[in-house]
């Protein structure tokens, strides 16, 4: 029997991706993850632009992880120009960074994945059938966005981040209010974890061992600092040698570059971070891990969404501790004194979807000479393809609709940022 699955522009993901499966007489003829996104040429667009404008350009690579792009950019500029920042700046940046991870994860688990687990096509019908769950997701999402607004000046495409510091910092009163709000949502997080746990049997059982890559820093579940860690390697690699890790190449089916290191592909994102850093999870995060029976190394890609849920607890608990520290020392108004200088530098952070690299070179006036930007979903495309190749033979006896749904759910599990990956 012949089977054909063609999904033109997968829904409920960021950007444009296609799924193509063709079988003839029970044999697989074609299994493809395609990326037809329009390239935007950001690495060319920043050339010749001032160091003061680069961030305003590159944050537009991604509407969902613009804070991560801004921070990777600023860290790259600072590394290139030898600009140092205060401990206070680092803590406030980290707090902003956590807000975006939390927002993005709630968006993904609550709006994009939940409909699959509840048998709906989108969150719209769920607003009637599962009103309480939708209200809970909206509440957490609203709080996450207000948290970003407070630190970054805007939810999407931050305004206040500058090389050397902030153009505006929040007041201590605002931070105190944020602390109260975050402490108040701990029961909501438990409730959300409970809802997802009750639906966990809807997650497909599929295992494929692969290489997982994430930032690692001893003693920390790191989103912001450290070296590049891999589940295939006992040693770590400094972030300024990221090109030796990503090994980008361009397949004919994609306008985004793909990546590979020790194997044909590797994975980045919440599951990769969990697999490398689970020893450093906070108490509530660990509680959620145990309730799902999750163990590192987990090789079921569908569980990336569960790792995101675990990270939601991690982010809120770590932020509460960070707020305590900031309020204990008190906030100081600091002057922005960064000056341009010739040099080259790398900025690296974990974006919600995985490790993100920006490299820049500048001349003495601070004009950009070159840029190289490697986005998490660049690094996941190859792994999605390899998952497809392993999964399709296992589900060939299912109907075309079931195959389609399982593959769509697999793509969604990676929470891909496709337009971001093509940039």
């Amino acid at each position: 029997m012949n089977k054909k699955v063609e999904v033109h522009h997968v829904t409920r993901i960021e950007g444009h991706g296609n799924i193509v499966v063709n079988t003839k007489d029970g044999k697989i003829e074609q299994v493809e993850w395609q990326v037809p996104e329009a390239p935007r040429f950001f690495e060319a667009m920043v050339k010749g632009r001032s160091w003061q404008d680069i961030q305003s350009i590159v944050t537009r690579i991604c509407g969902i992880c613009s804070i991560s792009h801004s921070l990777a950019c600023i860290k790259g500029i600072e590394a290139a120009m030898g600009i140092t920042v205060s401990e206070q700046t680092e803590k406030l940046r980290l707090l902003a960074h956590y807000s975006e991870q939390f927002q993005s994860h709630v968006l993904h688990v609550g709006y994009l994945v939940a409909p699959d687990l509840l048998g709906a096509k989108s969150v719209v019908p769920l607003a009637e059938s599962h009103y309480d769950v939708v209200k809970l997701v909206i509440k957490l999402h609203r709080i996450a966005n207000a948290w970003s607004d407070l630190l970054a000046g805007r939810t999407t495409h931050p305004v206040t981040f500058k090389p050397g510091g902030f153009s505006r910092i929040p007041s201590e009163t605002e931070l105190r209010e944020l602390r109260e709000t975050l402490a108040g949502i701990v029961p909501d997080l438990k409730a959300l974890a409970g809802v997802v746990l009750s639906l966990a049997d809807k997650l497909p059982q599929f295992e494929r061992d692969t290489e997982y890559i994430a930032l690692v820093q001893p003693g920390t579940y790191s989103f912001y600092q450290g070296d590049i860690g891999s589940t295939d390697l006992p040693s770590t690699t400094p972030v300024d040698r990221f090109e030796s890790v990503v090994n980008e190449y361009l397949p004919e089916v994609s306008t985004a570059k793909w990546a590979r290191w020790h194997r044909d592909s590797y994975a980045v994102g919440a599951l990769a971070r969990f697999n490398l850093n689970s020893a450093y999870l906070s108490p509530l995060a660990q509680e959620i891990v145990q309730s799902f029976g999750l163990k590192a190394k987990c090789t079921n890609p569908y569980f990336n969404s569960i790792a995101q849920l675990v990270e939601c607890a991690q982010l809120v608990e770590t932020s509460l501790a960070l707020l305590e520290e900031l309020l204990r020392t008190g906030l100081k108004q600091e002057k922005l004194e960064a000056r341009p200088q010739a040099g080259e530098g790398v900025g690296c952070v974990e974006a919600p979807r995985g490790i993100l690299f920006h490299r820049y070179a500048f001349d003495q006036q601070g004009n950009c000479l070159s840029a190289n930007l490697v986005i998490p979903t660049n690094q996941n495309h190859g792994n999605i393809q390899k998952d497809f190749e392993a999964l399709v033979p296992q589900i060939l006896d299912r109907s075309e609709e079931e195959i389609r749904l399982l593959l769509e759910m697999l793509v969604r599990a990676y929470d891909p940022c496709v337009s971001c990956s093509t940039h």
Partner: protein
Amino acid sequence: MSKPKLAIFDFACCEGCQLQIVNMEEEILNLISIVNPVQWREAMSEESDEYDIVLIEGSITRPEDEERLRRIREKAKVLVALGACAAGGGVNRLKNTLNLQEAKETVYGTAANMPHLNTSSTKAVDEVVAVDYKVYGCPIDRREFAYIVRCLALGKTPEIPGYPVCVECKLKENVCRYEYREICLGPLTRAGCGARCPSLNTWCFGCRGSIEEPNIDSAKEVVSKYGKTLKDLENRIALFGSK
């Protein structure tokens, strides 16, 4: 009266303007009580070819995307350009200042000549099809968006400020960014954001696009008064094309 059917389609962009619709949070529940979303790929798997109001996000950079946009326009009663990329080309317009072949080589190196990487220059939506309304900003302002959708559902014409950001900035009693020796595009840029960036102690970089009749001479005067060059001004205007 039946609710107007709403569809959202995206082209070359970061999809951050669609995210602002999600970011309306509880207000979204009110919005779907006055319009019926029938197609929105980023958030929904439901699909429909029948729609009244269409929101187009993103700039148009390939011939095949122009064709797709024309097909959408044929079916739409009202077409809205959503956000800076759709309304003016946005940051993607920077590409038009480059040699396309060189840009491809910069990004893709030895793979640059693979045919699927071909693009044309960046166009705003109204350079391809007729646009009924524009929602400005990078990203869009969610309150302004909600206002515009309410107007459309009621068949009214939304009013968007035609005056520059400086007006809103003065009302907020901000110190002018030029006093800090910064190049601020407030004098040339369409208001409606509440002078968000200058109010956060930084310059306006023009994400809502240029007002209809900007006073270029006066802007030049300001720039030279503060010891900056016209080139400095042009370099910042280039970021969002200020079409």
